[in-house]
């Protein structure tokens, strides 16, 4: 039903007036969906908290305290946000090409096992060891991400299904490597611990266990921005996403850009896995982190698939998780409430009609957000 897709630049309001005014109106429009979703989600959360016999205000106050109330809290927020920036970028870059990357989970595992393997087996290679290991993650993530791109470009296999399937293939592959060739004796099954010289150092400044990986994530967001909006390739990727027909007519090669967009996304998520290993855990254990890939989808959608938005979305998610621990400690509300809140946000953030019902048609036109992708060809 591509013919009734809402035009991307419709509202007069958004295109009229000075540049500054235009930027402000557009930014405001872009925030309508996310803010609406966040607000409703917290209202639903309040009802749930009330139902468990707790005071929602007290719970949310503790949540806020635990998210940004102290340097340690902020450190925990940054720690939680870091991998989500990477997995969020993995979704956002692919989305700009009109592709759904649900494979962040597996891509992150591929990066994690790459970092653990090289970290354990290479030893210290001079001051650039961390950079070398992360570059290797870029490579393996790129190749892993290219698989669904190739399957789509060559055989028309839908990337939603193939990336879901590749999640589990990647997780089992990484698990196999961690448990068989790299297995060491220890309480938790997994790889050996990586030499401290090849680890990402803590930031310090009272920020608890937050490490410089956060800044690597910010750098990745800048790279994603430059790549998408300041290079010829990025222009092509976005053109394919906005209008495959026109891009194809202009000779841009849909296949190549499909493969590249998913491969680049895979590289981002894989570096996220590498940063988790080198910055937080120092090894790959089984089980390893879960749901970072799936949460990256929420982060990207909240951030409207823009690198700056991804960073903000990841900080919100990171803050919610770190705040939830404080909330569980201070009140009787289980920390799993954070997952419920995030799920509700995700549920609502693309509900076009709902926003229209509540805020009127103008809000939807301003937001200009219509996610419409069919699974059939």
């Amino acid at each position, binding site marked *: *039903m591509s013919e*009734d897709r809402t035009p991307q630049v419709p509202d007069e309001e958004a295109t009229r007036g000075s540049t500054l005014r235009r930027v402000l109106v557009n930014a405001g429009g872009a925030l309508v969906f996310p803010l609406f979703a966040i607000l409703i989600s917290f209202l639903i959360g309040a009802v*749930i908290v009330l139902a*468990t016999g707790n005071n929602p205000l007290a719970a949310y106050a503790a949540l806020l305290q635990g998210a940004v109330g102290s340097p340690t809290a902020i450190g925990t927020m940054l720690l939680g946000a870091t991998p989500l920036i990477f997995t969020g970028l993995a979704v956002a870059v692919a989305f700009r090409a009109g592709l*759904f990357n*649900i494979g962040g989970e597996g891509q992150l595992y591929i990066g994690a096992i790459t970092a653990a393997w090289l970290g354990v087996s290479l030893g210290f290679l001079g001051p650039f060891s961390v950079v070398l290991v992360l570059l290797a993650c870029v490579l393996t993530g790129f190749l892993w991400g290219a698989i669904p791109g190739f*399957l789509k470009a*060559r*055989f*028309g*296999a*839908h990337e*939603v*299904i*193939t990336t*879901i*399937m*590749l*999640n*589990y*293939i990647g997780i*089992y*592959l990484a*698990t*196999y490597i961690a*448990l*068989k060739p790299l297995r060491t004796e220890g309480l938790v099954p997994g790889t050996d611990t990586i030499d401290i010289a090849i680890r990402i150092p803590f930031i310090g400044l009272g920020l608890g266990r937050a490490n410089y990986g956060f800044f690597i994530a910010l750098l990745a967001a800048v790279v994603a921005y430059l790549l998408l909006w300041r290079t010829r390739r990025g222009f092509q990727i976005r053109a394919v996403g906005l209008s495959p027909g026109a891009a194809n007519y202009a000779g841009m090669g849909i296949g190549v850009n499909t493969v590249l967009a998913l491969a680049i996304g895979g590289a981002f998520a894989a570096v996220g896995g590498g940063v988790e290993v080198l910055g937080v855990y120092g090894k790959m254990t089984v089980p390893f982190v*879960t*749901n970072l890939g*799936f*949460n990256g*989808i*929420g982060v990207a*959608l909240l951030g409207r698939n823009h690198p700056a938005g991804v960073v903000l979305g990841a900080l919100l998610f990171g803050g919610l998780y770190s705040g939830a621990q404080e909330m569980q400690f201070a009140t009787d509300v*289980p920390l*799993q*409430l*954070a*997952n*419920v*809140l*995030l*799920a*509700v946000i*995700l*549920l*609502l*953030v*693309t*509900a*076009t*009609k*709902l926003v229209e*019902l509540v805020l009127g048609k103008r809000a939807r036109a301003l937001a200009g957000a219509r*996610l*419409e*992708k*069919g*699974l*059939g060809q």
Partner: protein
Amino acid sequence: MGEIFGAPGELLASTIRFATPLVLAALGGMFSERSGVVNIGLEGLMLISAFAGVVGASLSGNAFVGLGFALAAGLGFALIHALMCVTFEADQIISGTAINLLALGGTGFLLVVIFGAGGTSPRVEGFEELPIPLLSDIPVVGPALFAQSLLVYLMYLLVPVTFFVLFRTPFGLRLRATGEVPEAVDTAGVSVTRMRYYGVALSGLLASLGGVYLSMGLLSAFTENMTNGRGFIALAALIFGRWNPIGAAGAALLFGFAQAVTIQAPQDLIPQEFLQMLPYVLTIIVLAGFGGRAIAPAAIGKPYRKE
């Protein structure tokens, strides 16, 4: 064979046990996807039902009350998915992902609130094995096929029933048409919205049977994230079986067999991780078009808007 895999009867019995939740959830996914709504939330529908079943059984001490709770939870969550995708035109993939996260977070949350501690619920009354007289006396296959839980027999029944409903009833015809050419269904005076609600609701009910079998058939307790990817394997079975009930059940049996072998084969023969990958690898191969292309219903994933 005998020395490596144990008795063939035991291998068959455990294949059936592993395949049952996959078959049920895959049949559920079929109703949803045939109506044009992608359901990657099968995992979450199974998980919330597995939990609700245990809650019901724990409150009442009766497994059937648990089953009722599970069906209600599966239906409720499926209706959230339908409300979001069909009524509010939210993205179906995103909504499905959200359903999965909601089930994971919600069951984790309620496990603490209701049972006082995370991790695992207390043991409850489950659906125990119920050998069918005479049939279960057949050598080898008898005990494997007919000394199972009630939910397994229900699964045997639901495969042909689903096939019949989908391909031999007016309802099935309308449902399939809604997934292929919704405009035509609309023109014929049948509500696309209603058909899609039916499809998604049925997927919730069937997936909940799969979920409740995990927590009250295979085990007698709920553990956090106990579905552990089974909803996605069911999705894989659905695609591998080309959106056909018989095909999906066959694929689910194959994947169940792979799991049964994983448990029974000695570790050093084939690494179990590679056997666990098998369903996903096979699905990708089929999607890529080897051995006959898997083609999804034409209108799947797209919200329907009247002109």
